[in-house]
């Protein structure tokens, strides 16, 4: 790869560049009124028809879709013919690039090189064995957000519990950006959403760091049965879904909230073969599962709040019968039964397939059935199921089609511009995370319903969201205002200045996208900046070039 100098030069060329960029005379673009109109109708047509490009090696899949009939000119003069067909680029990137994009919060040339050297399968196996990857540097970063490492008791004692929300958001994004356990982080994100707890839920806030650390992170690749039981006993979940208040003494009826979500969201799914009677029976079965105290306690089972209810006198839930068991042991046995259920296996495999392969994967597709079978053959172990999906031909051929979700967009921008962690700016980073991700609608751990942030491209691509994404990319073009060595554009453009604009674009694209820019986009960016490929490069164009590449559609997908 062209750019990864270990140390930036002492002389800060970034300051020079950004200082001059404010000078209007230094701007590479002076007369855009007419050009813009032309681009709108005409140049775009050329760009599109030229879009069948080759990107990053491998085969190129092109699909031709019927498109707009020519739009008659309305009030503006340009009358260049509109395109009659739109050729859509859906490239199949190289396997290492594809893995880097799909299995991390943003590909970088460094990671693509590592995967290439190691081999994709070996790299996936290494990532699944995440505990053997030294990530102490990232843990040191997370320590800047102390509540992320504290227990509920410590957070309670420290006061200002609500700071936990912002610190956890920053810690989560810091791990996504600077961590080395890429696939583990993706799976943490997956399980956080599968077992969603809104950190803004007042009673849960102080318990979320413990939940995130000791339940989700620890068990993200282990046995799902263990994860399910640990979640069921996690104070954050017990409070979020009201289970901690569920008691059946004194003629009370159990609270059904957790029981319902356990079946509908956490395990077999809404069409998993249970009915309302089953929900009530599970609510009875789990009565008495609670916590010691709301502010600092761990899990506690209260026998005096528990009764088996209808299941004591017969019947089953999804094939499970207590067979004389009661209390905590009965509930635990039922959870393990749910984890091993075929419906759960299929549902988890499908959810993971949608996440890692794409929304087009159906619940009965072979790749899903295979992964579910692996899960069951390994007694609900998560890592072999994930491995089965990631080594499938379906994964290999998925192409760069999925739109980055906002957390991925934010993280990938920071990674692309190689912004380094700077402890003295920890609070700036925290406010950037919360402000920008609020604007984009995906603050970590803050989805307000038990079903987790949607994993559907359409959900994240509203018109307003696109404007916000583009504006964030523009801000990333100078490392969000950071100066060297935290941000240094020579890491993107190379330590020796490019001779021409074309060379600068090509170098920047490789650094930012880990692959060449699509020729159509290259042409469009040159046109927009009023230059040709052979124009003499001027450092004042640095930010504009970086911004245009970061804003390109190629950077929106993974």
């Amino acid at each position, binding site marked *: 790869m062209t750019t990864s100098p270990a140390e930036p030069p002492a002389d800060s060329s970034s300051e020079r560049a950004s200082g001059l960029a404010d000078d209007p005379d230094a*701007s590479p673009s002076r007369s855009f009124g007419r050009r813009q109109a032309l681009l709108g109708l005409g140049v775009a047509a050329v760009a599109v028809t030229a879009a069948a490009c080759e990107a990053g090696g491998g085969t190129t899949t092109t699909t031709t879709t019927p498109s707009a009939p020519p739009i008659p000119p*309305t009030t503006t003069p340009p009358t260049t013919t509109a395109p009659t067909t739109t050729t859509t680029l859906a490239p199949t990137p190289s396997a290492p690039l594809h893995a880097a994009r799909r299995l991390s919060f943003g590909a970088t040339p460094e990671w693509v090189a590592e995967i290439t050297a190691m081999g994709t399968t070996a790299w996936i196996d290494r990532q699944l064995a995440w505990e053997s990857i030294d990530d102490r540097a990232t843990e040191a970063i997370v320590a800047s957000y102390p509540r992320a490492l504290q227990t509920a008791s410590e957070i309670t004692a420290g006061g200002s519990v609500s700071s936990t929300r912002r610190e956890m958001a920053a810690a989560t994004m810091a791990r996504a950006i600077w961590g080395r356990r890429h696939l583990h982080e993706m799976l943490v994100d997956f399980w956080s959403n599968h077992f969603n707890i809104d950190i803004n839920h007042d009673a849960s806030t102080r318990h979320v760091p413990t939940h995130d650390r000791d339940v989700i992170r620890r068990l993200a690749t282990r046995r799902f049965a263990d994860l399910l039981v640990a979640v069921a006993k996690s104070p954050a979940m017990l409070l979020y879904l009201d289970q901690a208040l569920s008691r059946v003494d004194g003629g009370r009826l159990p609270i059904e909230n957790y029981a319902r979500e356990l079946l509908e969201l956490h395990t077999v799914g809404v069409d998993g073969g249970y009915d309302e009677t089953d929900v009530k029976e599970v609510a009875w079965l789990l009565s008495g599962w609670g916590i010691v105290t709301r502010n600092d306690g761990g899990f506690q089972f209260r026998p005096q709040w528990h009764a088996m209810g209808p299941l004591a006198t017969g019947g089953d839930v999804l094939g499970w019968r207590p067979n004389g068991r009661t209390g905590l042991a009965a509930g635990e046995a039922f959870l393990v039964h749910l984890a091993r259920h075929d419906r759960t296996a299929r549902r988890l495999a499908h959810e993971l397939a949608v996440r890692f392969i794409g929304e087009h994967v159906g619940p009965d597709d072979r790749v899903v059935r295979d992964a579910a079978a692996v899960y069951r053959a390994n007694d609900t172990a998560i890592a072999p199921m994930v491995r089965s999906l990631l080594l499938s031909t379906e994964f290999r051929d998925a192409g760069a089609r999925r739109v980055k979700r906002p957390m991925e967009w934010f993280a990938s921008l920071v990674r692309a511009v190689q912004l380094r962690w700077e402890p003295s700016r920890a609070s700036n980073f925290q406010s950037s995370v919360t402000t920008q991700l609020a604007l984009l609608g995906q603050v970590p751990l803050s989805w307000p319903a038990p079903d987790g942030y949607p994993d559907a491209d359409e959900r994240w691509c509203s018109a307003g969201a696109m404007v916000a994404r583009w504006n964030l990319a523009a801000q990333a073009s100078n490392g969000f205002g950071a100066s060297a060595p935290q941000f240094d554009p020579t890491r993107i453009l190379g330590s020796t200045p490019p001779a021409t604009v074309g060379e600068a674009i090509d170098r920047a694209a490789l650094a930012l996208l880990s692959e060449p820019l699509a020729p159509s986009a290259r042409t469009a960016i040159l046109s927009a900046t009023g230059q040709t490929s052979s124009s003499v490069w001027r450092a004042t164009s640095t930010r504009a070039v970086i911004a245009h590449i970061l804003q390109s559609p190629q950077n929106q997908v993974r």
Partner: protein
Amino acid sequence: MDDTPIAVPLLGMDRRRFLGVVGVGGGALAATAWLRPSALIGRAAAASAAPDNVIVEIFLRGGADGLSFVTPLGDPTLARLRPGVAIPDASALTIDGRFGLHPAMVRIAGLLRDGRAAFVPAAGSPSPNRSHFSAQAMMDQGIAAGTSTSGWLGRYLQATTGSIEDPLRAVGVGNGLAASLRGSNAVATPNLQSLALTSAGTGASSTQIAAALRATYPGASSPVLRAAAAAGLDIVAEVAPIAAGAAPPATWPTGFGAALWPIAKLIAEGFPLEIATADLGGWDEHDAMGSPTDPNANQTKLVAGLDAAVGAFFDWIGGAAARTTVLVTTEFGRRIALNGSGGTDHGRGMVMMVLGGGVNPGVHGDWPGLTDTDAGDVRVANDYRRVFAEVLGRRGRATDLTAVFPGADVRPSTWLGVMA
């Protein structure tokens, strides 16, 4: 609706017509229209069929005290349970013989005098819920139990969407999409400035950036991305002409006013807005509410802030007020009796307000009084969804309201008469 054409300001009318037939800036629309074949035709058709009405939902987050908005007159209970905090009859701005308004609600009282303010006390959800989190979630989702992944306005917008719709049909002011708008293509933005492409010191002008985007996104690998980019560029082009006036004037009220400014501006400029939402927070007054006649008391400042923001909003939109209906709601009311800190804890029945065009002025719905309570709270006698439904049913596009409010009886016969 028949009063709409006369009431629309000239500028507004012009822009709406212009948008419908030609598209803002003509060239701007044409530039992106080819990405979406039916845009031009669809927009022209929508312009003739679309209602000009605007519905604005203001959600007071935190559980606003209804008894500090609308107080029963001649009822000694409140003065007894809220010493120093109850609105004295003598200070209340009279609505009718039974109810009065907080003395700080001068602008809303003015709307009432003009026949443009309706109030529903004892409103709320039929299912008891005193948690901010779940009560807000359920009201945003328009349900009384369970959870939904879409909001009530989101379902309405989705059900009434045309073959193609203007991206500025629905706008939620705030960071991220308002929960009530989930399930729709509504634009979420904290302010109008955020709907413009920023050059952010890159040296690339916003025009230059837009040109590059317009040229590159038709080649995106994801069809979702292609469509969203086209709509995003439409918004940028639509808002560009008012970008210079995107910030509120110096006289505009700060605080609550800030959230209402983008909506007022879009309405006054005649953008094809139909649904807008704004969140006003800070209503969770557990302590030191203070006297309604003290302008510096905490509760008075909240009420006055809302009143000033609503007043400025209607001033700014001028004649467009006749086609604009503002719906004010909150997740629950507060306990009737004061707690030990001079504040009130989470309660049940709250006060909804419907302000502006098409309103049937006065107080509506059942009033259970302050002695027949729900564990010390105002009893919920009026399902909030019937008010939402009536506003949608009378001011929105025709749609099946039972699909917007699943599980609720929102037939017209159940409506409370808040609309004329």
